[in-house]
């Protein structure tokens, strides 16, 4: 291997240059106002956590974790997501003070890279968690909040895909003969490997009738605009399925009330590698990025791992991908440059003070230290010269 060069960063790590950094800060500012106005409180958790607790409970695969060892020999991880640490704080402390809890975060998370680029190993996530409310209103609040936040950022061409992990599980169980088969199919659905799905079905020795209804289910329940279209796939004699379906119907009418009908499609085959999702789950897509910009859902299962059964729901958006799809370029911020020379230093300070007081971003710069005056000026919207004689060349 060639030795590491001075300019290199570890695989997948990125610098945020001022321009990008400003955009990120802008998302953070908009988000802070937006989520706070809806009653969410922001929280921070440590960058480093125990592998034994957070590392194992998080749904991020082991191979993607950055691991290190502390002085006592305990394995630590750089937090791979924010949901798990927030659940840790909530179940161990905050829930004793307030329930339900509305928490929000803007934080960087870490996922190790295997080989190639195009995927950052550290990125910012912004999201919210609503812990201690199992009602359909909580789930609707998550989807609506995500959608309206995306709109708030000026992203108009976006879609939400909504599914239900519990209902899918129940339907799969009914159509197959064993839990193992369900697990196998589940894995294929996470990848949306339709070819593999059909091939696997053939190995199950189902009746022709069963196989056909299965393929119909996968083909037709994966993309519908109205929840009613899913009704034929629900077994009306199975009370659990009926309950979950009417839950989805309620959710759908709440989303309709929020004016989101055109943005939402339903996909009963939607599932996630995050095994802790138990109920509603959703994904957010926007044109301009080849990857989903965010996802969320109900994760009562994760709370159970922390010995709590109060239930929780939430979502997270990837800030790097939001930046990819945000088209609106903010107008150039006024930024005044004052060139001064030795005799005019105090004048420059006073002048700059006045401008800053008016809220104008102002830089004062000794002219003699600048080699290429012409190039330097191009970074500013306005230039003032406090120079004796003809220093102004």
């Amino acid at each position, binding site marked *: 291997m060639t030795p590491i060069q001075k300019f290199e960063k570890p695989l997948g790590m990125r610098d945020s240059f001022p321009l990008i950094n400003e955009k990120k800060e802008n998302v953070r500012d908009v988000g802070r106002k937006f989520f706070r106005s809806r009653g969410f409180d922001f929280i921070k958790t440590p960058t480093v956590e125990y592998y034994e607790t957070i590392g194992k409970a998080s749904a991020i695969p082991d191979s993607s974790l950055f691991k290190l060892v502390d002085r006592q020999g305990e394995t630590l991880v750089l937090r791979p997501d924010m949901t798990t640490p927030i659940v840790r704080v909530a179940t161990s402390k905050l829930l004793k003070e307030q329930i339900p809890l509305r928490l929000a975060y803007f934080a960087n998370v870490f996922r190790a890279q295997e080989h190639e680029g195009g995927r950052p190993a550290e990125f910012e996530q912004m999201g919210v968690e609503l812990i201690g409310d199992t009602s359909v209103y909580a789930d609707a609040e998550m989807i609506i909040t995500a959608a309206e936040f995306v709109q708030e950022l000026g992203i108009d061409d976006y*879609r939400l*895909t909504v599914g239900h992990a519990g209902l899918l599980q129940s339907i799969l169980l009914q159509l197959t003969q064993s839990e193992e088969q369900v697990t196998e199919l589940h894995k294929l659905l996470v990848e*949306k490997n339709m*070819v593999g799905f*059909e091939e696997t079905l053939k190995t199950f020795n189902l009746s022709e009738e069963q196989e056909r209804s299965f393929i119909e289910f996968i083909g037709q329940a994966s*993309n519908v605009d109205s929840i009613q279209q899913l009704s034929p796939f629900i077994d009306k004699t199975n009370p659990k399925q009926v309950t979950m379906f009417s839950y989805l119907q309620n959710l759908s009418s709440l989303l309709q009330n929020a004016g989101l009908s055109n943005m939402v*499609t339903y996909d009963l085959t939607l599932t996630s590698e995050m095994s802790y999702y138990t109920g509603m789950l959703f994904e957010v*897509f926007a044109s301009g990025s*080849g*990857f989903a910009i965010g996802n969320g859902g109900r994760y009562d299962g994760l709370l159970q791992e922390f010995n709590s059964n109060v239930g929780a729901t939430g979502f997270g958006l990837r800030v790097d991908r939001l930046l990819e799809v945000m088209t609106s370029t903010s107008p150039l911020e006024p930024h005044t440059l004052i060139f001064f020379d030795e005799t005019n230093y105090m004048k420059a300070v006073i002048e700059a003070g006045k401008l800053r007081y008016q809220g104008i971003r102002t830089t004062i710069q000794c002219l003699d230290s600048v080699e290429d005056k012409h190039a330097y000026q191009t970074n500013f919207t306005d230039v003032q010269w406090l120079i004796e004689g003809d220093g102004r060349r």
Partner: protein
Amino acid sequence: MSELTIAMPKGRIFEEAYALLQKAGFQLPDDLEESRKLIVEVPHERIRFILAKPMDVPVYVEHGVADIGIAGKDVLLEQKRSVHELLDLKISQCYIATAGLPNTLMNDIAPRVATKYPKIASDFYKEKGEQVEIIGLNGSIELAPMIGLADRIVDIVSTGRTLTENGLVEYERIVDVTSRLIANPVSYRLKSERIRDMVKRLKDSME
């Protein structure tokens, strides 16, 4: 109707896949691959083709610069990219197998396997419970056992002629390979109508 960008593999698979699209009713010009262009527009169908190396098709689709693509199952297994596999086009049928010199056993201490498919090969031997050393090659894999570089190779077999001509025999069949229609997860949602229409038409024309 939104524009659809399709990543097509250059070479052998191209012709078959292209004919399949024509058969499904897409009005496409007959002489597309003859030009040396890498991007070809078909305005009246609102389709844009990207001509790529077969191994690269899933890369374009995963990153969303192509909405859909046509890729061999061998490539999909080797690269494990997050793309949706929508349809088995049943073209370019072949399979991946292990092969070697006749009547030979694997070396006990350090069995070596030469292949273009390091991941598929190592997954296969892991599953079998054997630890092997993988040697990555880019072509003419058959050479490896002949000149003593490896005990076995893992490679694509279509007729088996190349193996026979080089005095090799097939040992184990690993997996069947055909070309698949793959889609980017975001395009699958945002351009669902077009993609589903294409899947349906391809499916119907194949029956």
